[in-house]
Protein backbone atom coordinates (compact mmCIF):
# COMPACT_ATOMS: atom_id res chain seq x y z
CA UNK A 1 0.00 0.00 0.00
CA UNK A 2 2.96 2.31 0.26
CA UNK A 3 4.00 2.33 -3.36
CA UNK A 4 4.39 5.59 -5.19
CA UNK A 5 1.38 6.56 -7.23
CA UNK A 6 -0.20 3.21 -6.58
CA UNK A 7 0.56 1.68 -9.99
CA UNK A 8 2.81 -1.09 -8.63
CA UNK A 9 0.24 -1.91 -6.07
CA UNK A 10 -2.33 -2.28 -8.81
CA UNK A 11 -0.11 -4.46 -10.98
CA UNK A 12 1.20 -6.80 -8.31
CA UNK A 13 -2.24 -7.72 -7.16
CA UNK A 14 -3.13 -11.37 -6.95
CA UNK A 15 -6.45 -11.01 -8.73
CA UNK A 16 -6.77 -11.50 -12.42
CA UNK A 17 -8.66 -8.26 -12.76
CA UNK A 18 -8.40 -6.44 -16.01
CA UNK A 19 -6.41 -3.24 -16.20
CA UNK A 20 -8.16 -0.87 -18.52
CA UNK A 21 -6.41 2.18 -19.85
CA UNK A 22 -8.85 4.98 -20.53
CA UNK A 23 -7.44 7.96 -22.33
CA UNK A 24 -5.43 10.11 -22.79
CA UNK A 25 -7.08 10.49 -26.18
CA UNK A 26 -10.53 9.46 -25.16
CA UNK A 27 -13.47 11.65 -26.14
CA UNK A 28 -15.05 11.44 -22.72
CA UNK A 29 -12.00 12.76 -20.91
CA UNK A 30 -12.55 16.35 -22.08
CA UNK A 31 -8.96 16.97 -22.89
CA UNK A 32 -6.00 14.76 -22.33
CA UNK A 33 -6.58 12.82 -19.18
CA UNK A 34 -5.70 9.23 -18.56
CA UNK A 35 -7.43 6.96 -16.14
CA UNK A 36 -6.12 3.54 -15.27
CA UNK A 37 -9.08 1.43 -14.27
CA UNK A 38 -8.96 -1.92 -12.57
CA UNK A 39 -12.13 -3.64 -13.56
CA UNK A 40 -13.85 -6.83 -12.66
CA UNK A 41 -16.30 -7.41 -15.45
CA UNK A 42 -18.22 -4.20 -15.72
CA UNK A 43 -17.44 -2.97 -12.24
CA UNK A 44 -14.61 -0.58 -11.53
CA UNK A 45 -12.62 -1.76 -8.54
CA UNK A 46 -10.09 0.99 -8.50
CA UNK A 47 -9.05 3.92 -10.58
CA UNK A 48 -5.82 5.76 -10.86
CA UNK A 49 -5.95 9.16 -12.51
CA UNK A 50 -2.89 10.35 -14.41
CA UNK A 51 -2.66 14.04 -15.06
CA UNK A 52 -0.02 16.25 -16.57
CA UNK A 53 -0.48 15.72 -20.28
CA UNK A 54 -1.38 19.34 -20.75
CA UNK A 55 1.26 20.77 -18.47
CA UNK A 56 2.61 23.98 -19.97
CA UNK A 57 4.25 25.43 -16.92
CA UNK A 58 1.98 28.45 -16.80
CA UNK A 59 2.93 29.32 -13.24
CA UNK A 60 6.63 29.26 -13.99
CA UNK A 61 6.19 31.05 -17.30
CA UNK A 62 4.36 33.83 -15.48
CA UNK A 63 7.50 34.61 -13.55
CA UNK A 64 9.26 35.52 -16.77
CA UNK A 65 6.52 37.69 -18.20
CA UNK A 66 5.52 41.22 -17.38
CA UNK A 67 2.31 41.79 -15.48
CA UNK A 68 0.26 42.64 -18.55
CA UNK A 69 1.60 39.68 -20.48
CA UNK A 70 0.58 37.21 -17.79
CA UNK A 71 -3.06 37.86 -18.73
CA UNK A 72 -2.48 35.91 -21.94
CA UNK A 73 -1.33 32.94 -19.89
CA UNK A 74 -4.39 33.11 -17.68
CA UNK A 75 -6.56 33.06 -20.78
CA UNK A 76 -5.21 29.63 -21.47
CA UNK A 77 -5.68 28.10 -18.03
CA UNK A 78 -9.35 27.33 -18.11
CA UNK A 79 -9.81 27.86 -21.80
CA UNK A 80 -13.57 27.61 -21.64
CA UNK A 81 -14.06 30.52 -19.28
CA UNK A 82 -11.34 32.92 -20.33
CA UNK A 83 -12.96 36.09 -19.05
CA UNK A 84 -13.33 34.74 -15.54
CA UNK A 85 -9.68 33.78 -15.47
CA UNK A 86 -8.46 37.12 -16.73
CA UNK A 87 -10.70 38.75 -14.20
CA UNK A 88 -9.32 37.03 -11.13
CA UNK A 89 -5.74 37.72 -12.15
CA UNK A 90 -6.47 41.38 -12.88
CA UNK A 91 -8.16 41.66 -9.51
CA UNK A 92 -5.11 40.20 -7.82
CA UNK A 93 -2.78 42.78 -9.33
CA UNK A 94 -5.28 45.57 -8.71
CA UNK A 95 -5.59 44.58 -5.06
CA UNK A 96 -1.81 44.57 -4.79
CA UNK A 97 -1.61 48.06 -6.25
CA UNK A 98 -4.61 49.30 -4.27
CA UNK A 99 -6.32 50.28 -7.48
CA UNK A 100 -9.98 51.17 -7.83
CA UNK A 101 -11.29 50.44 -11.27
CA UNK A 102 -14.00 52.53 -12.95
CA UNK A 103 -17.55 51.48 -12.31
CA UNK A 104 -18.38 51.00 -15.95
CA UNK A 105 -15.48 48.61 -16.31
CA UNK A 106 -16.77 46.61 -13.36
CA UNK A 107 -20.20 46.35 -14.91
CA UNK A 108 -18.80 45.20 -18.22
CA UNK A 109 -16.64 42.68 -16.41
CA UNK A 110 -19.66 41.30 -14.59
CA UNK A 111 -21.68 41.04 -17.79
CA UNK A 112 -18.93 39.32 -19.74
CA UNK A 113 -17.99 37.09 -16.82
CA UNK A 114 -21.55 35.88 -16.38
CA UNK A 115 -21.97 35.37 -20.11
CA UNK A 116 -18.84 33.29 -20.03
CA UNK A 117 -20.33 31.26 -17.20
CA UNK A 118 -23.35 30.52 -19.35
CA UNK A 119 -21.16 29.62 -22.31
CA UNK A 120 -19.14 27.30 -20.13
CA UNK A 121 -22.20 25.63 -18.63
CA UNK A 122 -23.75 25.24 -22.07
CA UNK A 123 -20.65 23.43 -23.22
CA UNK A 124 -20.87 21.27 -20.13
CA UNK A 125 -24.51 20.53 -20.79
CA UNK A 126 -23.82 19.40 -24.33
CA UNK A 127 -20.81 17.25 -23.57
CA UNK A 128 -22.36 15.79 -20.46
CA UNK A 129 -25.29 14.73 -22.58
CA UNK A 130 -22.85 13.07 -24.94
CA UNK A 131 -21.22 11.26 -22.03
CA UNK A 132 -24.58 9.93 -20.97
CA UNK A 133 -25.48 8.95 -24.52
CA UNK A 134 -27.68 11.85 -25.58
CA UNK A 135 -26.49 13.08 -28.95
CA UNK A 136 -28.94 15.90 -29.58
CA UNK A 137 -28.44 18.39 -26.73
CA UNK A 138 -24.93 19.21 -27.88
CA UNK A 139 -26.35 20.66 -31.08
CA UNK A 140 -28.67 22.93 -29.15
CA UNK A 141 -26.16 23.98 -26.54
CA UNK A 142 -23.46 24.77 -29.05
CA UNK A 143 -25.86 26.93 -30.98
CA UNK A 144 -26.35 29.02 -27.85
CA UNK A 145 -22.69 29.03 -27.01
CA UNK A 146 -21.79 30.15 -30.51
CA UNK A 147 -24.03 33.19 -30.12
CA UNK A 148 -22.23 34.17 -26.95
CA UNK A 149 -18.88 33.70 -28.60
CA UNK A 150 -19.96 35.87 -31.51
CA UNK A 151 -20.69 38.62 -29.01
CA UNK A 152 -17.28 38.08 -27.43
CA UNK A 153 -15.74 38.49 -30.83
CA UNK A 154 -17.61 41.72 -31.42
CA UNK A 155 -16.46 43.05 -28.06
CA UNK A 156 -12.91 41.79 -27.69
CA UNK A 157 -11.89 40.69 -31.17
CA UNK A 158 -11.40 37.06 -30.33
CA UNK A 159 -13.73 34.19 -29.70
CA UNK A 160 -11.67 32.61 -26.98
CA UNK A 161 -8.28 34.05 -26.02
CA UNK A 162 -9.50 37.58 -25.54
CA UNK A 163 -6.84 39.45 -23.57
CA UNK A 164 -9.54 42.05 -23.02
CA UNK A 165 -9.52 42.62 -19.26
CA UNK A 166 -6.50 44.69 -18.42
CA UNK A 167 -5.03 45.62 -15.11
CA UNK A 168 -6.94 48.73 -14.13
CA UNK A 169 -9.95 48.15 -16.32
CA UNK A 170 -10.53 47.06 -19.88
CA UNK A 171 -8.56 47.23 -23.08
CA UNK A 172 -11.19 49.44 -24.70
CA UNK A 173 -14.80 50.29 -24.26
CA UNK A 174 -17.47 47.98 -25.64
CA UNK A 175 -18.67 48.78 -29.16
CA UNK A 176 -21.39 51.38 -29.56
CA UNK A 177 -24.03 48.85 -30.50
CA UNK A 178 -23.38 46.79 -27.38
CA UNK A 179 -26.81 47.39 -25.76
CA UNK A 180 -28.59 46.30 -28.93
CA UNK A 181 -26.35 43.27 -29.29
CA UNK A 182 -27.02 42.32 -25.70
CA UNK A 183 -30.78 42.72 -25.91
CA UNK A 184 -30.86 40.50 -28.95
CA UNK A 185 -28.50 37.99 -27.42
CA UNK A 186 -30.33 37.81 -24.10
CA UNK A 187 -33.66 36.96 -25.65
CA UNK A 188 -31.98 34.26 -27.74
CA UNK A 189 -30.03 32.83 -24.86
CA UNK A 190 -33.09 32.58 -22.62
CA UNK A 191 -34.69 30.43 -25.28
CA UNK A 192 -31.55 28.41 -25.83
CA UNK A 193 -31.06 27.66 -22.16
CA UNK A 194 -34.70 26.76 -21.74
CA UNK A 195 -34.61 24.46 -24.73
CA UNK A 196 -31.48 22.70 -23.54
CA UNK A 197 -33.05 22.36 -20.12
CA UNK A 198 -36.26 20.94 -21.55
CA UNK A 199 -34.41 18.60 -23.81
CA UNK A 200 -32.25 16.92 -21.24
CA UNK A 201 -33.01 17.60 -17.59
CA UNK A 202 -36.02 15.37 -17.10
CA UNK A 203 -35.49 12.92 -19.90
CA UNK A 204 -36.14 9.51 -18.34
CA UNK A 205 -33.14 7.82 -19.88
CA UNK A 206 -30.85 10.62 -18.83
CA UNK A 207 -32.23 10.67 -15.30
CA UNK A 208 -31.79 6.91 -15.06
CA UNK A 209 -28.19 7.25 -16.15
CA UNK A 210 -27.32 10.03 -13.72
CA UNK A 211 -29.59 9.93 -10.68
CA UNK A 212 -27.89 8.25 -7.77
CA UNK A 213 -24.70 7.78 -9.74
CA UNK A 214 -21.47 9.08 -8.27
CA UNK A 215 -23.06 10.41 -5.11
CA UNK A 216 -20.83 12.01 -2.53
CA UNK A 217 -21.75 13.30 0.88
CA UNK A 218 -21.09 16.83 1.94
CA UNK A 219 -18.37 16.04 4.47
CA UNK A 220 -16.28 14.12 1.99
CA UNK A 221 -16.80 16.75 -0.67
CA UNK A 222 -15.53 19.44 1.65
CA UNK A 223 -12.60 17.27 2.63
CA UNK A 224 -11.62 16.97 -0.99
CA UNK A 225 -11.75 20.73 -1.31
CA UNK A 226 -14.66 20.82 -3.69
CA UNK A 227 -16.11 24.17 -4.57
CA UNK A 228 -18.51 25.59 -7.06
CA UNK A 229 -21.44 23.74 -8.58
CA UNK A 230 -20.04 20.37 -7.51
CA UNK A 231 -20.11 21.37 -3.87
CA UNK A 232 -23.44 23.12 -4.13
CA UNK A 233 -24.91 19.95 -5.57
CA UNK A 234 -24.19 18.34 -2.19
CA UNK A 235 -26.46 20.84 -0.51
CA UNK A 236 -24.16 23.55 0.80
CA UNK A 237 -24.99 27.06 -0.27
CA UNK A 238 -21.47 28.27 -0.74
CA UNK A 239 -20.69 30.68 -3.51
CA UNK A 240 -17.79 33.12 -3.41
CA UNK A 241 -20.01 35.70 -5.04
CA UNK A 242 -22.13 35.51 -1.88
CA UNK A 243 -19.67 34.46 0.79
CA UNK A 244 -17.14 37.15 -0.05
CA UNK A 245 -18.76 39.47 -2.58
CA UNK A 246 -16.19 40.84 -4.96
CA UNK A 247 -16.57 43.35 -7.74
CA UNK A 248 -20.23 44.40 -7.74
CA UNK A 249 -21.88 41.17 -6.74
CA UNK A 250 -23.30 42.66 -3.56
CA UNK A 251 -25.50 44.88 -5.71
CA UNK A 252 -27.27 42.16 -7.59
CA UNK A 253 -30.18 40.09 -6.53
CA UNK A 254 -29.72 36.44 -7.41
CA UNK A 255 -30.20 33.00 -5.94
CA UNK A 256 -27.57 30.38 -5.32
CA UNK A 257 -29.10 27.09 -6.45
CA UNK A 258 -28.25 24.02 -4.42
CA UNK A 259 -28.83 20.32 -4.90
CA UNK A 260 -29.39 17.76 -2.19
CA UNK A 261 -28.01 14.32 -3.05
CA UNK A 262 -24.68 15.28 -4.53
CA UNK A 263 -25.05 12.85 -7.41
CA UNK A 264 -24.39 13.40 -11.09
CA UNK A 265 -27.89 14.63 -11.82
CA UNK A 266 -27.70 17.23 -9.05
CA UNK A 267 -24.35 18.43 -10.28
CA UNK A 268 -25.90 18.78 -13.71
CA UNK A 269 -29.06 20.49 -12.59
CA UNK A 270 -27.30 22.98 -10.33
CA UNK A 271 -25.46 24.21 -13.39
CA UNK A 272 -28.64 24.52 -15.39
CA UNK A 273 -30.23 26.60 -12.66
CA UNK A 274 -27.08 28.68 -12.43
CA UNK A 275 -27.43 29.66 -16.06
CA UNK A 276 -30.82 31.20 -15.33
CA UNK A 277 -29.35 33.08 -12.38
CA UNK A 278 -26.50 34.38 -14.53
CA UNK A 279 -29.06 35.69 -17.00
CA UNK A 280 -30.84 37.45 -14.14
CA UNK A 281 -27.56 39.07 -13.05
CA UNK A 282 -26.78 40.20 -16.59
CA UNK A 283 -30.18 41.79 -16.99
CA UNK A 284 -29.71 43.76 -13.77
CA UNK A 285 -26.20 44.79 -14.72
CA UNK A 286 -27.25 45.97 -18.17
CA UNK A 287 -29.92 48.15 -16.65
CA UNK A 288 -27.58 49.94 -14.23
CA UNK A 289 -24.51 50.22 -16.44
CA UNK A 290 -23.27 53.81 -16.17
CA UNK A 291 -21.30 55.66 -18.84
CA UNK A 292 -17.76 56.73 -18.15
CA UNK A 293 -14.17 55.67 -18.56
CA UNK A 294 -13.15 52.02 -18.53
CA UNK A 295 -9.48 52.31 -17.65
CA UNK A 296 -8.00 53.57 -14.41
CA UNK A 297 -4.35 53.38 -15.38
CA UNK A 298 -2.75 55.83 -17.75
CA UNK A 299 0.70 54.35 -17.96
CA UNK A 300 1.58 51.02 -19.34
CA UNK A 301 4.37 49.85 -17.10
CA UNK A 302 2.90 48.06 -14.13
CA UNK A 303 5.04 47.82 -11.02
CA UNK A 304 3.05 46.83 -7.94
CA UNK A 305 4.68 47.42 -4.58
CA UNK A 306 6.35 44.58 -2.74
CA UNK A 307 3.94 42.23 -1.08
CA UNK A 308 1.61 39.35 -1.66
CA UNK A 309 -2.13 38.84 -2.07
CA UNK A 310 -4.53 35.98 -2.31
CA UNK A 311 -7.62 36.65 -4.36
CA UNK A 312 -10.44 34.27 -5.05
CA UNK A 313 -13.38 34.28 -7.35
CA UNK A 314 -16.23 32.11 -8.44
CA UNK A 315 -15.41 30.55 -11.77
CA UNK A 316 -17.88 28.36 -13.64
CA UNK A 317 -16.04 25.36 -12.28
CA UNK A 318 -15.68 26.54 -8.73
CA UNK A 319 -13.49 28.73 -6.64
CA UNK A 320 -10.31 29.84 -8.31
CA UNK A 321 -7.61 31.39 -6.17
CA UNK A 322 -4.59 33.36 -7.23
CA UNK A 323 -1.69 33.89 -4.91
CA UNK A 324 0.56 36.60 -6.23
CA UNK A 325 3.90 37.66 -4.81
CA UNK A 326 5.53 40.82 -6.04
CA UNK A 327 9.11 41.86 -5.42
CA UNK A 328 8.61 45.35 -6.72
CA UNK A 329 9.80 44.72 -10.27
CA UNK A 330 7.75 44.62 -13.44
CA UNK A 331 7.45 40.85 -13.35
CA UNK A 332 5.65 38.79 -10.73
CA UNK A 333 7.87 36.89 -8.34
CA UNK A 334 5.45 34.03 -7.96
CA UNK A 335 2.00 33.25 -9.27
CA UNK A 336 0.19 30.35 -7.72
CA UNK A 337 -3.16 29.24 -8.99
CA UNK A 338 -5.63 27.21 -7.01
CA UNK A 339 -7.65 25.56 -9.73
CA UNK A 340 -11.15 24.32 -8.96
CA UNK A 341 -10.99 21.46 -11.46
CA UNK A 342 -7.98 19.94 -9.77
CA UNK A 343 -9.83 19.60 -6.48
CA UNK A 344 -12.89 18.14 -8.15
CA UNK A 345 -10.72 15.66 -9.97
CA UNK A 346 -8.96 14.53 -6.83
CA UNK A 347 -12.18 12.90 -5.67
CA UNK A 348 -12.51 10.86 -8.82
CA UNK A 349 -10.98 7.75 -7.36
CA UNK A 350 -13.37 7.88 -4.47
CA UNK A 351 -16.33 8.36 -6.80
CA UNK A 352 -15.73 5.69 -9.41
CA UNK A 353 -14.91 2.87 -7.00
CA UNK A 354 -17.70 0.37 -7.32
CA UNK A 355 -19.33 2.07 -10.27
CA UNK A 356 -19.83 0.61 -13.73
CA UNK A 357 -17.39 1.54 -16.47
CA UNK A 358 -20.08 3.42 -18.36
CA UNK A 359 -20.88 5.32 -15.19
CA UNK A 360 -17.24 6.23 -14.71
CA UNK A 361 -17.52 8.24 -17.91
CA UNK A 362 -20.64 9.97 -16.64
CA UNK A 363 -19.01 10.71 -13.28
CA UNK A 364 -15.96 12.21 -14.92
CA UNK A 365 -18.18 14.28 -17.16
CA UNK A 366 -20.27 15.53 -14.26
CA UNK A 367 -17.21 16.99 -12.56
CA UNK A 368 -16.77 19.30 -15.56
CA UNK A 369 -13.02 19.49 -15.49
CA UNK A 370 -10.82 21.44 -17.85
CA UNK A 371 -7.45 19.88 -18.18
CA UNK A 372 -5.74 23.13 -19.02
CA UNK A 373 -6.48 24.22 -15.51
CA UNK A 374 -5.71 20.93 -13.81
CA UNK A 375 -2.26 20.62 -15.32
CA UNK A 376 -1.57 24.34 -15.78
Amino acid at each position, binding site marked *: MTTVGGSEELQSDQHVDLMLNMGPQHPSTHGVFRMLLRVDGEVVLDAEPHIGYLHRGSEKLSEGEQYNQVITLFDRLDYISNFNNEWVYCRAVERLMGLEIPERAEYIRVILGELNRIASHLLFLGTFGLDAGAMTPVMFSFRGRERIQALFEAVSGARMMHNYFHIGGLKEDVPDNFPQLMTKLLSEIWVDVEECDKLLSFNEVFVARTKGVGAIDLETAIDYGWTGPCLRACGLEYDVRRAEPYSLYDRFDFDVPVGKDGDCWDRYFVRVLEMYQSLVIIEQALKDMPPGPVMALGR*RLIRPPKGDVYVRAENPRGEIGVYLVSDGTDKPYRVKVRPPSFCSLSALRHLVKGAYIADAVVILGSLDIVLGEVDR
Partner: protein
Amino acid sequence: MLGSLKGMFLTLTSAFRRPVTDQYPNKPRQLEDRFMGFPALTWDHNVGEPFCTSCMVCIRQCPTQCMSATMIDNPLQKEGKSHRRKIVDTFEINLNRCILCGICVEVCNFDAIVMSHEHEMSVYQRNDDRVDLIELLEMGKRYQEDTGWIPPSQRKKAEKEETAVEKASA
Protein backbone atom coordinates in the same frame (compact mmCIF):
# COMPACT_ATOMS: atom_id res chain seq x y z
CA MET B 1 -42.30 9.24 -20.14
CA LEU B 2 -43.28 12.88 -20.29
CA GLY B 3 -39.73 14.21 -20.21
CA SER B 4 -38.53 12.34 -23.23
CA LEU B 5 -41.71 13.11 -25.17
CA LYS B 6 -41.21 16.80 -24.50
CA GLY B 7 -37.65 16.50 -25.76
CA MET B 8 -38.76 14.70 -28.87
CA PHE B 9 -41.36 17.33 -29.58
CA LEU B 10 -38.66 19.97 -29.26
CA THR B 11 -36.38 18.25 -31.71
CA LEU B 12 -39.30 17.84 -34.06
CA THR B 13 -40.12 21.55 -34.02
CA SER B 14 -36.49 22.43 -34.55
CA ALA B 15 -36.53 20.37 -37.73
CA PHE B 16 -38.54 23.15 -39.35
CA ARG B 17 -36.20 25.91 -38.23
CA ARG B 18 -33.72 27.59 -40.49
CA PRO B 19 -30.31 25.95 -40.10
CA VAL B 20 -27.84 27.97 -38.06
CA THR B 21 -24.75 26.35 -39.50
CA ASP B 22 -22.79 28.18 -42.16
CA GLN B 23 -21.07 25.93 -44.67
CA TYR B 24 -17.72 27.46 -43.97
CA PRO B 25 -15.40 27.23 -46.95
CA ASN B 26 -18.22 28.00 -49.37
CA LYS B 27 -19.65 30.80 -47.32
CA PRO B 28 -16.93 32.80 -45.59
CA ARG B 29 -17.62 34.02 -42.11
CA GLN B 30 -18.85 37.53 -41.50
CA LEU B 31 -16.06 39.12 -39.51
CA GLU B 32 -16.63 41.61 -36.73
CA ASP B 33 -14.94 44.99 -36.94
CA ARG B 34 -12.76 44.21 -33.97
CA PHE B 35 -11.81 40.76 -35.18
CA MET B 36 -8.17 40.11 -34.40
CA GLY B 37 -6.41 38.26 -37.16
CA PHE B 38 -2.68 38.09 -37.63
CA PRO B 39 -0.68 41.28 -37.04
CA ALA B 40 0.26 43.33 -40.09
CA LEU B 41 2.17 46.54 -40.75
CA THR B 42 0.46 49.63 -42.04
CA TRP B 43 1.44 51.85 -44.94
CA ASP B 44 1.55 55.62 -44.80
CA HIS B 45 -0.04 56.60 -48.08
CA ASN B 46 0.68 60.28 -47.58
CA VAL B 47 4.41 59.72 -47.63
CA GLY B 48 4.71 56.39 -49.33
CA GLU B 49 6.50 54.46 -46.62
CA PRO B 50 5.62 52.24 -43.69
CA PHE B 51 4.59 53.81 -40.41
CA CYS B 52 6.97 51.55 -38.58
CA THR B 53 10.23 53.08 -37.41
CA SER B 54 11.46 49.79 -36.05
CA CYS B 55 11.57 51.16 -32.54
CA MET B 56 11.51 47.63 -31.09
CA VAL B 57 8.86 48.36 -28.47
CA CYS B 58 6.46 45.74 -29.75
CA ILE B 59 9.27 43.29 -30.18
CA ARG B 60 10.26 43.61 -26.56
CA GLN B 61 6.65 43.46 -25.36
CA CYS B 62 5.56 40.44 -27.37
CA PRO B 63 4.92 37.60 -24.90
CA THR B 64 6.06 34.94 -27.34
CA GLN B 65 9.03 36.79 -28.83
CA CYS B 66 7.88 36.03 -32.33
CA MET B 67 9.02 39.21 -34.06
CA SER B 68 12.31 40.71 -35.13
CA ALA B 69 13.23 43.87 -36.98
CA THR B 70 16.10 46.06 -38.09
CA MET B 71 16.18 49.79 -38.81
CA ILE B 72 18.00 52.07 -41.23
CA ASP B 73 18.28 55.81 -41.71
CA ASN B 74 15.32 56.98 -43.69
CA PRO B 75 16.37 58.05 -47.21
CA LEU B 76 13.12 59.94 -47.70
CA GLN B 77 13.90 62.11 -44.70
CA LYS B 78 17.10 63.38 -46.33
CA GLU B 79 15.02 64.41 -49.30
CA GLY B 80 12.72 66.21 -46.91
CA LYS B 81 9.69 64.13 -47.78
CA SER B 82 9.25 62.41 -44.45
CA HIS B 83 9.47 63.34 -40.80
CA ARG B 84 10.69 59.88 -39.77
CA ARG B 85 14.41 59.83 -39.16
CA LYS B 86 14.62 56.06 -38.96
CA ILE B 87 12.62 53.55 -40.89
CA VAL B 88 12.11 49.81 -40.84
CA ASP B 89 14.46 47.83 -43.02
CA THR B 90 13.48 44.25 -42.32
CA PHE B 91 10.69 42.93 -40.19
CA GLU B 92 9.71 39.38 -39.60
CA ILE B 93 6.89 37.80 -37.64
CA ASN B 94 6.70 34.11 -37.07
CA LEU B 95 2.97 33.64 -37.30
CA ASN B 96 3.27 30.12 -35.97
CA ARG B 97 4.31 31.55 -32.64
CA CYS B 98 1.98 34.50 -32.58
CA ILE B 99 -0.87 34.04 -30.13
CA LEU B 100 -2.95 36.94 -31.47
CA CYS B 101 -2.95 38.73 -28.16
CA GLY B 102 -2.87 42.23 -29.61
CA ILE B 103 -0.24 43.50 -27.18
CA CYS B 104 1.98 44.70 -30.03
CA VAL B 105 -0.82 46.90 -31.33
CA GLU B 106 -1.47 48.35 -27.91
CA VAL B 107 2.13 49.34 -27.26
CA CYS B 108 3.03 50.75 -30.67
CA ASN B 109 3.36 54.53 -30.50
CA PHE B 110 3.40 55.05 -34.26
CA ASP B 111 0.14 53.38 -35.36
CA ALA B 112 2.40 51.11 -37.34
CA ILE B 113 0.93 47.71 -36.55
CA VAL B 114 -2.64 46.46 -36.66
CA MET B 115 -4.44 43.23 -36.02
CA SER B 116 -5.51 42.55 -39.58
CA HIS B 117 -8.42 40.45 -40.66
CA GLU B 118 -6.20 37.77 -42.20
CA HIS B 119 -6.90 34.40 -40.74
CA GLU B 120 -6.78 31.83 -43.51
CA MET B 121 -3.06 31.43 -43.62
CA SER B 122 -2.43 27.73 -44.03
CA VAL B 123 0.80 26.89 -45.81
CA TYR B 124 2.59 23.74 -46.84
CA GLN B 125 5.77 24.26 -44.87
CA ARG B 126 6.24 25.53 -41.38
CA ASN B 127 8.75 28.14 -42.45
CA ASP B 128 6.28 29.63 -44.89
CA ASP B 129 4.50 31.15 -41.93
CA ARG B 130 7.44 33.42 -41.21
CA VAL B 131 6.28 36.52 -43.00
CA ASP B 132 8.64 39.34 -43.93
CA LEU B 133 8.18 43.06 -44.34
CA ILE B 134 6.80 42.94 -47.88
CA GLU B 135 4.13 40.43 -46.98
CA LEU B 136 3.27 42.19 -43.74
CA LEU B 137 2.79 45.44 -45.61
CA GLU B 138 0.65 43.64 -48.17
CA MET B 139 -1.56 42.29 -45.40
CA GLY B 140 -1.69 45.73 -43.82
CA LYS B 141 -2.64 47.45 -47.07
CA ARG B 142 -5.41 44.96 -47.61
CA TYR B 143 -6.68 45.63 -44.13
CA GLN B 144 -6.47 49.39 -44.57
CA GLU B 145 -8.42 49.17 -47.79
CA ASP B 146 -11.07 46.82 -46.46
CA THR B 147 -11.81 48.73 -43.31
CA GLY B 148 -10.98 52.31 -44.22
CA TRP B 149 -8.45 52.43 -41.44
CA ILE B 150 -7.60 55.78 -39.91
CA PRO B 151 -4.53 55.92 -37.67
CA PRO B 152 -5.79 55.85 -34.06
CA SER B 153 -3.77 58.90 -33.07
CA GLN B 154 -5.37 60.96 -35.84
CA ARG B 155 -8.77 59.70 -34.85
CA LYS B 156 -8.16 60.66 -31.25
CA LYS B 157 -6.95 64.09 -32.28
CA ALA B 158 -10.07 64.62 -34.36
CA GLU B 159 -12.26 63.51 -31.47
CA LYS B 160 -10.49 65.88 -29.12
CA GLU B 161 -10.95 68.75 -31.51
CA GLU B 162 -14.58 67.88 -31.86
CA THR B 163 -15.15 67.96 -28.11
CA ALA B 164 -13.16 71.17 -27.88
CA VAL B 165 -15.39 72.75 -30.54
CA GLU B 166 -18.44 71.47 -28.73
CA LYS B 167 -17.20 72.95 -25.46
CA ALA B 168 -16.38 76.26 -27.11
CA SER B 169 -19.81 76.46 -28.65
CA ALA B 170 -21.55 75.44 -25.46
